[in-house]
């Protein structure tokens, strides 16, 4: 018969379930990371968007892995989530690459003085 749980790689592995204790650790980590991110942005030293996004990615990973139990889900869920993340990255990268590297856009009719300041 198909689908016997013990030999079914498509059914989540529930023998080591995520427990309340995992949730607590995850929540603590999230609060610490959020506070770190907030603190960094308030510092006079400019750390930039990259650091904030890296912290965000870590937080997102924590939520996905433990709050959403992705660690114990089947292989397909993990692959598709990874693939989706990769595509988001590609879309943002290749779209932003265009204005980053393109020759200056023709100034808009109305306020081209402001545009020049923004572009340089």
């Amino acid at each position: 018969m198909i689908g016997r749980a013990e030999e079914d790689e498509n059914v989540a592995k529930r023998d080591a379930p995520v427990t309340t204790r995992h949730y607590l650790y995850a929540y603590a980590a999230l609060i610490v990371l959020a506070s770190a991110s907030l603190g960094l942005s308030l510092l006079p030293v400019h750390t930039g968007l990259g650091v904030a996004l890296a912290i965000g990615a870590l937080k997102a990973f924590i939520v996905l892995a433990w709050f959403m139990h992705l660690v114990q889900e089947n292989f397909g869920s993990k692959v598709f989530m990874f693939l989706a993340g990769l595509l988001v990255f590609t879309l943002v990268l290749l779209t932003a690459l265009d204005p980053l590297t393109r020759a200056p856009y023709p100034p808009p009719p109305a306020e081209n003085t402001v545009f020049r300041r923004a572009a340089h």
Partner: protein
Amino acid sequence: MIAVKLEPEPMALPPDYLHAKQGPMSWLTTTDHKRIALMFYGAVLVMFLLGGVFALLFRTELLSPRRDIMDATTYNKLFTWHGIVMVWLFLIPSIPNIFGNFILPLQLGARDLAFPRLNLASFYVYLVGATIVLSGLFAGGTDTGWTFYMPYSENTPVTLFPVVFGIFVVGISSIFTGLNFIATVHMLRAEGMTWRRLPLFTWSIYATSIILVLATPVLGLSLILVGLDHVFHLGVFDPATGGDPVLFQHLFWFYSHPAVYIMILPAMGVISEVVPTFAHRRPSSYAAIALSSLGIAFGGFLAWGHHMFVAGISTLDAGVFGIFSMFVAVFSAIKVFTWVATLYRGDIVFSTPLLYFFGFLFLFVFGGMTGVAVATQSLDVHWHDTYFIVAHFHFIMVGGSLTSFLAAAHYWFPKMFGRLYSERVGLLAASLVFMGFVLTFLPQFLLGNAGMPRRYYSYPAEYQWLHVLSTGGSYLLGSAVLLALGNLALALAYGARSEQNPWEARTFEWLSPSPPPEHNFESPPVIDREPYAFDLSEEQIRARAFPG
């Protein structure tokens, strides 16, 4: 209905899915994937004919450079309507929602899709979306072209929002269907149906579904933003407030380039079934076809910028997109070589679906080669926005999908309805479809190369003879499609009863009765071999596949 009662089924078999339940409500509320497939069949064919009528109308107008039957605004609307209806209401749902829906569970040995009610919901969401789109169109809307480019779409005087919202709704239906197929392939394969035993049609529908789920939401978002810009002047893409209209093109083509593979991958899947069946050979490389489907699906996500070479995007970005576009052609070429190699030394039976394959082969290779040409930036500058592009994408995506759609309609006709169509009329129609198609679009390659821009109402007199040829071809194509569909419609009522496996096909879906019973299989089947190796006698196979 009366004819059915005169020929009672053998008592041993359960009634087929067409007769298992009676009455209109048993259809409208069904969760049987086969019945939902047929409802999609009906709806999608209506859209197909509608989109075809739009095309014939504006092709008629183009017979001469003067005004013939409509003014310029009506012409703009008609080519827009043709594009919108054909792309979103016909081509995108056609093969996946009809044949994918019907055949996929049968090929997997499953009793239904993973989420049957979601499947039914997908149908009704499609109907609602299509109704919104069509009412928006007929209320006089949309002259923007099917691409909705900004900033024209923000400022066009005609109504826009119902149409883009309707397409958004149709997109939800696409996502539901794609999600359902992926879940089914992952979770409902019969015992012994490993990934390496999936039939190639299933592989291609699976690859298509990945695109449906991951690309469609971006289209939905970009169209909603266009609609909001049009109605509320949010100015997301509006250059007057510093916005960048090219960004709309990025988002739009992030979906709409992979959408080409939503149309062509299922077509390739159909071909990958038709060729081994009528050549009586196993596919010469199963892995090459299966893996190239995934390669096309993933590679296709990285190629969208080739639509924007002349839109002012950066040359670096354009170069990246150009290279990725050519990668996709490599995977497509692998498939073409494998199909041709499958025919080599085959015991070829010349039939209607196979004739459509030959048409497909020519249109696909020709369209594909011109595609590699326009993926080159320097050449694209010359051909961009001319009839050359129109002819290119009609060859590869319409020619490819239409011929395989008709191939599938004939190939699985006995499976779906248990009857045989007239082979002679089928062969005639297939030849005429091919001739009509070539006659319509070959002149357009020449027109575009000579400098005729697309979407123009009028043109210099020296282009007229090519336009007349093209219009003549479109009339031929239209009649040929009607002939093919009419042949099938007649067979539905008067066709001879088909055996279970009239083509001697060697894939698993032909092992269930034709037409299949409501629940596909009496007992859960067991797969014990490669996908194209079901060539024992029927009794032997049944004994192995349904032990006990």
